[in-house]
C-alpha cells in the first residue's frame, strides 16, 4: 500500500469516529489526542477500526507507541511491509 493511500485510510477511519476532523489542521508530529477530542472509547474504536480495515494486528502492548499521526502511519507501514 502506498503511503498516501495508507494515510487516506487512517484519516477516513478517524473521521468515522470524529467526523469534525479537518485533515489540513492535523500536525503529524503532535499528539493526535491534543488536536482531536478523543476519549478513551473513541481512541480504542479508532485502533479497532484500523485493525478491521487494514487487517493489521495492533496488540494492546503497542498502544503506548501510537501517540502522533506520524507514529500511527510509521507503525502501520512497518506492519504492512
Amino acid at each position, binding site marked *: 500500500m502506498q503511503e498516501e493511500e495508507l494515510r487516506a485510510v487512517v484519516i477516513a477511519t478517524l*473521521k*468515522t469516529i*470524529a*467526523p*469534525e476532523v479537518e485533515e489540513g489542521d492535523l500536525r503529524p508530529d503532535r499528539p493526535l*489526542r*491534543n488536536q482531536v*477530542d*478523543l*476519549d*478513551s*472509547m*473513541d*481512541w*480504542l474504536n479508532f485502533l479497532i477500526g484500523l485493525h478491521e480495515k487494514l487487517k493489521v494486528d495492533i496488540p*494492546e*502492548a503497542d*498502544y*503506548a507507541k501510537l*501517540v502522533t499521526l506520524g507514529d500511527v502511519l510509521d507503525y502501520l507501514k512497518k506492519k504492512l511491509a
Partner: protein
Amino acid sequence: MDRPTIIRKTAADLRVPPNLADYAAARAAFSWEAVQAELAGLPGGGLNIAYEAVERHAQGARRDNVAFRFLGANTSRDISYGELSRLTNRFANVLKSLGVGKGERLFILSGRIPELYVAVLGSFKNGTAVSPLFSAFGPEPIATRIKLGEGAVLVTTELLYERKVAKIRDQLPTLRHVLLVGEDGQATAVPDTFDLGKLMAEASDIFDIVPTQAEDLSLLHFTSGTTGTPKGAMHVHGAVATHWATGKYALDLHAEDIYWCTADPGWVTGTSYGIIAPLLHGVTSIVDEADFDAERWYRILAEQKVSVWYTAPTAIRMLMKAGAEIARKHSYPSLRFVASVGEPLNPEAVWWGKEVLGLPIHDNWWQTETGGIMIANTPAADIKPGSMGRPLPGIEAAIVKKDAEGKRPGVSEEANAREAGVMPELKVSLVDTADTEGELALKAGWPSMLRGYLHNEERYRKCFAGEWYLTGDLAKRDADGYFWFVGRADDVIKSAGHLIGPFEVESALMEHPAVAEAGVIGKPDEMVGEVVKAFVSLKKGFEASDALRMELLGHARKKLGAVVAPKEIDFLPSLPRTRSGKIMRRLLKARELGLPEGDTSTLEAG
C-alpha cells in the same frame, strides 16, 4: 466461573493497621465535632482548605516530603509540600494583583498539569472559589458553565484556549482575565490574555491566607440533571472535615503512602481525592498527565511503588480487556489497597483485582452533591462483590419511598403551588425491609454536603424531604447493611462514571438545521456503563443518510466535546411524546433495548 458471594478478610489481608478496624465501634464513637477538632484551623481564626492541605505540612516536619509527582510523556517532576506552599502563594498573589477577590469564581480548563493543582490551591488561599472543567468539554459546555458560574478568571492552556475558548470569549461578559499556560512551558503572547508563567515569576512567594470561614464557598462543581442547564453544586471550606475523615477511613491513607488517584480534576473525584484528601494526610500523590494506556498504568503502579490506588470501573474494565499478560510483566509488592468509584463495579472486576493484582477492588459510592465518599468497602471489612459497601462513620444512609401525598408533583400542580407561594413539601418513608428497592437517601448535615445549586434554590430544595437528602439513585440494602446500586431514578446518563444530562445533548443537536426533534438516552455498554445514544427526527426537506449522520455527529462533537457528544445517532420519523409534549426518553430506551414498553399512559407526564 462460580465464585463465592463474599470475600472474607483476615489479618493477613492487612499490611498496615487499618484506620477503620472495628466498623460498629467506630460508627458509635464518631462525631463530626471530633473530626473538626483534628483540623488545624487558620492561625487567626477561620478555616481554609489550602491551609489544612498545604501550609500545615509546609510549616512542619513534612515540608520536604513530595506532595505531587507529575509524570509527563517521558518526564517526572516532584513538588514538595514546601515548594507547593510557595507556588500557591505566588498564584494567590497573581489573583490579588489582578483584583480578583474573595467569593469570585475562577474556572480551570486544562489537562493534569502542575499549574492546575497550583491554581486550585492558590485560589483557595485567596478565598476565590474554583470551578474545574473537564478539558475534553467542547465550547458549548464550557460557555454554559462559565456563564452560569459568572466566572471572573479562566486558567487554561494556549492550545485549549485557541481551540475552544477564543471563539466563545465574547459570550462571556463576566470573564475579566484569562491566564494561559504555554505549550511545553514556553511563553505565550495571545491577545487579551496573560502569560501565567510570567505573572507567577513576578509574584511574591509570601502570602497571608485570606481568612475564610467554614461556610465560605470553596468549589463549584457542575453536574447534570434530566432537564435544563447543568447545576452548579456549591461546596464550602468546611467540607475539608469530610475529605479528612474519608481519606482516613475509606482510602485508609497513612502518612508514608504513595497514592494514585486516576480521576481528572475536571470531575469531583479528581478534586476531592486527586488534590485535597491526599494532601490533608501528607502523602505523596502520583499524577499521570497522559491518557489511559494499560501498559503505562501497570508500569506506573510498579515503578512508582503505589501503595493506595483509587480508580474507576471503566479503567478497570479496560485493563481487564487488555489482558493479564501485560499486568504480569510487572509485580506490585507495594500495592496494599485498591478502591474504585464512578459507577457500580461488577463482581468480575472485583475478583479480577484479586486474581491479577493480588488485591480485591473496593467499590465505593458518592456523587458531586455529597462532596466526599459516603458509602464504601473498607480494608478490614468483608467485600460482597457488586455491592458499594456500608455507610462510613458519620453517615446515615437509608432506602426511602416517596409517600403518595408527597409524590413529586406534576407540572400543573407544581405551577399552582408556586403561584400560591409555597412549594409542595416532599415526604418520604423509610424502607426497612431488606433487599427492597427504593431511592438512596442520606441524613443531611455531613460537612461536605452541597450548600445549594448556584442561582437555583428550587432545584436544591427538591433534593430534600425533611431531614433526608435524596440522591436520585435507586438502591437496595441487604440484611447485613450493605448497599447495592440498582439504577438512576431519572434519565441522567452515566458514562465512564460521569453524569451527562440528556437535555444538554438534545439542545446541541437541535441547533443543527436538519434536526426537528432529538431524544437522548444512555445505552448500556459493557465497558463504560452507558454510552450516549441520540434519536433524531428530521425537518421537511432533509433525508436520513449516513452522510447526514456523520454530519450530525461532527456537529455535536464540535459543540459538546467527545465526552458529552453522542456515540450513536439513529433517525426516526418522529419521536414519542407525552400529551404535554415532552419526549419520552424511557420509551426510546425500552425500544432500543427490546424491553416491553409497558402501559405508556402511566408514564409520568411531568
